[in-house]
């Protein structure tokens, strides 16, 4: 009970004040979409507020923490520019408010990358992008940065050697670190020059064996002048394929505290305590989050969550937007039957899926809402930054 009380309090007070507004990274924003929560509770077929997706499954990095290693679906369809633009039109038609280019591939490598972002911006859908930044060169940055709500660079470590060892072939290959830093600095300068609203951050996916990189990472964020540096846990599948030892995170709490203190007015250092302290086990059994935050693979596969992209979870595969329009997938029996399955006792989120999915915050809040332990209340304050990204 004490743990639940702490969780409720934490969820109510995790906004970080920045110069540009409140930033919520370690919680959810469902209070700002309260009407959709009520409609969902009443059994209405609500559209996801946000979609997390990739435009390809390809990636030039080989991060040791990469969850894409366990996300291989049956098909690897190539997403063409027209299909990507149609997808945006379908998102707008059904009521999706934002798209995060993250998921299981490096979207900057896709030919659809720039037109997808420009088109989304034109039809009023917010776009965010997580990237290693290696192929995100000045010409591309010039084209997309004015249209993006946020960019988050995957940055596994604060030292060039640590970064290259974790994200590429070996500690000697520091050219990838140099390239990423050059592009991040370019974006930071462009943001200032054009006075853009885009939020720029770097993210460390923390595995216990990377603990010596925590402080250098925080210092790097400050030196780069990005808006934030965030440190989060590493996800693993339910079989422990990636070998993440969640029992060792507690030993790093002091270091993480120290890292947070290195933040300043310009650059916040944020630790995703909620996920880290859950140690890989969610408090919920049913999985409601995907109805608000859907995931699409860089293979075109539409599934409730990236946790289910692998062929193993084929019973939770809904469709592929390369084969048929997303708006038809959204209206299909498969979409609603699969979402309903996740809300039924046949599915147990504690044993049948990987740890701490991107829908974790929303799922935790929706579970407490349905159980009546903490109802989601409508927000009356100024919306935080990135309000359409849950």
């Amino acid at each position, binding site marked *: 009970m004490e743990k639940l009380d702490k969780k409720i309090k934490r969820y109510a007070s995790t906004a970080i004040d920045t110069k540009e507004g409140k930033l919520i990274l370690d919680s959810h924003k469902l209070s700002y979409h309260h009407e959709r929560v009520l409609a969902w509770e009443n*059994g209405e077929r609500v559209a996801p507020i946000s979609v997390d997706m990739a435009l390809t499954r390809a990636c030039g*990095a080989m991060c040791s923490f990469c969850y894409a290693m366990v996300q*291989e679906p049956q098909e690897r369809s190539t997403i063409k520019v027209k299909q990507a633009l149609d997808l945006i039109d379908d998102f707008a038609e059904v009521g999706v408010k934002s798209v995060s280019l993250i998921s299981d591939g490096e979207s900057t490598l896709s030919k659809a990358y720039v037109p997808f972002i420009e088109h989304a911006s034109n039809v009023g859908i917010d776009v965010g992008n997580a990237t290693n930044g290696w192929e995100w060169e000045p010409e591309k940055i010039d084209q997309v940065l004015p249209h993006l709500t946020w960019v988050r660079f995957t940055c596994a470590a604060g030292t060039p050697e640590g970064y290259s060892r974790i994200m590429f072939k070996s500690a000697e290959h520091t050219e990838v670190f140099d390239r990423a830093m050059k592009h991040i600095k370019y974006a930071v300068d462009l943001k200032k020059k054009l006075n853009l609203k885009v939020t720029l951050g770097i993210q460390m996916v923390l595995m216990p064996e990377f603990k010596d990189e925590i402080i250098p990472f925080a210092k790097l964020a400050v030196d780069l002048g990005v808006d934030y540096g965030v440190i989060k846990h590493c996800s693993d599948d339910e079989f422990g394929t990636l070998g993440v030892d969640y029992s060792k995170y507690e030993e790093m709490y002091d270091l993480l505290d120290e890292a947070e203190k290195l933040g300043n007015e310009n650059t916040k250092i944020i630790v995703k305590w909620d996920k880290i302290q859950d140690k890989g086990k969610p408090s919920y059994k049913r999985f409601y989050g995907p109805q608000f935050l859907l995931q699409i693979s860089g293979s075109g596969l539409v599934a409730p969550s990236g946790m289910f992209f692998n062929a*193993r979870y084929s019973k939770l*595969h809904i*469709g*592929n937007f390369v084969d048929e329009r997303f708006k038809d997938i959204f209206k299909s029996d*498969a979409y609603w039957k699969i979402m309903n399955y996740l809300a039924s006792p046949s599915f147990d989120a504690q044993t049948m899926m990987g740890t701490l999915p991107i829908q974790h915050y929303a799922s935790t809040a929706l579970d407490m809402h349905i159980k009546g332990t903490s109802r989601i209340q409508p927000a009356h304050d100024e919306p935080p930054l990135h309000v359409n990204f849950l």
Partner: protein
Amino acid sequence: MKNLINKDNAFANSPEAGVEWKQKTEKERILIIEEKLKTNPKHSIFEVFNANKDAQVILKTEQSILAKERGLLLLEVEEVLKKSIEEAITVWLEPIGDKSKLRNLRGITIKSVE
């Protein structure tokens, strides 16, 4: 479609395998499932790869099934097996390993059972 989002379902435990299922050998479990699958031509494309005592059943098939069809088909198979054999049966398909040659240099091998 019935709305399953409610307090009772939120708190409910998933069904656990019964004694009868647990007492069978894996060979017997596989046999009983395969017999059931054979009774429906749509379901007979699946073979049983693994059926453990916790009623986690891994199927495999040589056939390529469209993404829009495989979810509904496998949920249907699971429902039939739950009703006819053991309520706790949970169906999965044989997993696929990462096809990225670069990431495979990490030497990660996908696990399918604990």
